[in-house]
């Protein structure tokens, strides 16, 4: 079981400052607030929408969506994961554009209300539950799932996991330049960290350990 309580507490309390600016008309209207890394954007942007209400043409107001440097943000990932995916170099506060028109429905899931977030979140938890509690009797090895321990009982590390799924993320030698950064919860953990420990301490509330691999 998870035992490093301080780590758990730090992860749970993790927040980043985000600056929301209204797209197009550069009205200098922006609102900055800290958002929890484990949360989802539709759950925290009510205040943003209230703030921008008076600037937005009510007739043209459609579903809200967010953009990070012309990349629409997928609300169904936790905020911390979306931030990790921007790469480690992003300066704080994180500057996002807020849109109320031209919803990119080819790229983003619609989020008509908070029920949609709950429904998505629950489906992630169910998937995790199905993985964790599949009866031992039916156990079939599926190669692409990754076990926390080797046959001989030694703990698999983050390096082992990357070696298995995405070997190109590992640099070839000590003096080779790093091509990818591996980020979890805003941190680049040492590659020797056991996967079991990461899963217990760095997982999101959806029960998944989200590992972001971004090219440097």
């Amino acid at each position, binding site marked *: 079981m998870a035992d490093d309580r301080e780590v758990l507490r730090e992860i749970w309390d993790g927040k980043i400052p985000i600056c929301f600016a209204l797209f197009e008309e550069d009205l200098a209207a922006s609102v900055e607030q800290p958002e929890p890394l484990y949360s989802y954007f539709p759950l925290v942007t009510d205040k943003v929408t209230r703030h921008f209400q008076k600037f937005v043409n009510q007739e043209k107001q459609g579903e809200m969506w967010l953009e990070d440097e012309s990349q629409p943000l997928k609300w169904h990932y936790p905020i911390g994961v979306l931030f990790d995916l921007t790469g480690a170099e992003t300066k704080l506060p994180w500057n996002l554009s807020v849109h109320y028109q031209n919803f990119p429905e080819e790229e983003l*899931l619609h989020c008509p209300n908070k029920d949609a977030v709950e429904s998505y979140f629950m489906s992630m938890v169910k998937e995790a539950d199905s993985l964790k509690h599949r009866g031992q009797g039916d156990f079939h090895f599926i190669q692409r799932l990754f076990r926390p321990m080797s046959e001989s009982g030694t703990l698999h590390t983050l390096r082992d996991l990357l070696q298995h799924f995405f070997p190109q993320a590992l640099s070839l030698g000590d003096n080779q330049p790093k091509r990818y950064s591996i980020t979890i919860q805003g941190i680049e953990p040492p590659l020797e960290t056991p996967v079991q420990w990461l899963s217990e301490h760095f997982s999101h509330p959806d029960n998944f350990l989200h590992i972001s691999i971004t090219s440097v």
Partner: protein
Amino acid sequence: MSHGRRRPIQIGWLLASITRQPLIASLDFYCLIASQLQMAGCSTYVLTEKEFTANANQLISISNSIGDNWQLHHFKDGDVDCYLSKRLTKDLKLSPSYEGESVLDLEEENEVEDDVNTLSTASVGELCTFEYHVMYSSSYAAPVLYFTAYWQDGHLLSLEDLWASLSKIYQCRLRADRWTFVTQQEHPVLHRPFYQLHPCKTGLLMALMRECKDTQSSHGDGIIRNMLVSWLSTVGPVVHLDIPVQYGISIQDHK
């Protein structure tokens, strides 16, 4: 019910020929059995990736022989390395949904009032192209049905329109599960929004089918079964995807 258990193969098709309302009946039947199995602590059916691939290949060869337009795509990306797809165009009639149904949920429908107004103009029927993808989920050890659909002008079919396009009985039957039965999800390979039939009950439905199979084989007339086809023929029609009965016949003749 015991009758159903002994004649398991094409419950959907059987009922279709008798009642012409295959899916509401078969879905209800399956849900009932599935919940009983769950309560009895029965394990779910684990469809291995190998069985999925074999089933998918059989489905393709039958599809080719009857011209049903299913295609098999190969790739390597994490969870899966092949998926099935089929595209078809339907004349969709949208009924202003939820009308004459239980009042309980009417409150929350107020916000879709605008949609209902636009629906009524479209109720004569419009062409809508569906694209179905069937892929393997190693999390659920089960097949998952994804689909997307767009109108002739390129607009995507909204979830409201999808519900309005279902026949009244399904709307009524599934309204309690509105937020869990079909949801929009990111396609695991294309990373675009697709609708997904949620797979959390699939393993139980297939467990029921296996039970039927075991009963059958103890009588010595070993049934050859294609789990993928059995499952798809049950859930597909809910979202306008019909699986012709020739699949069942071909699979039986295959012995």
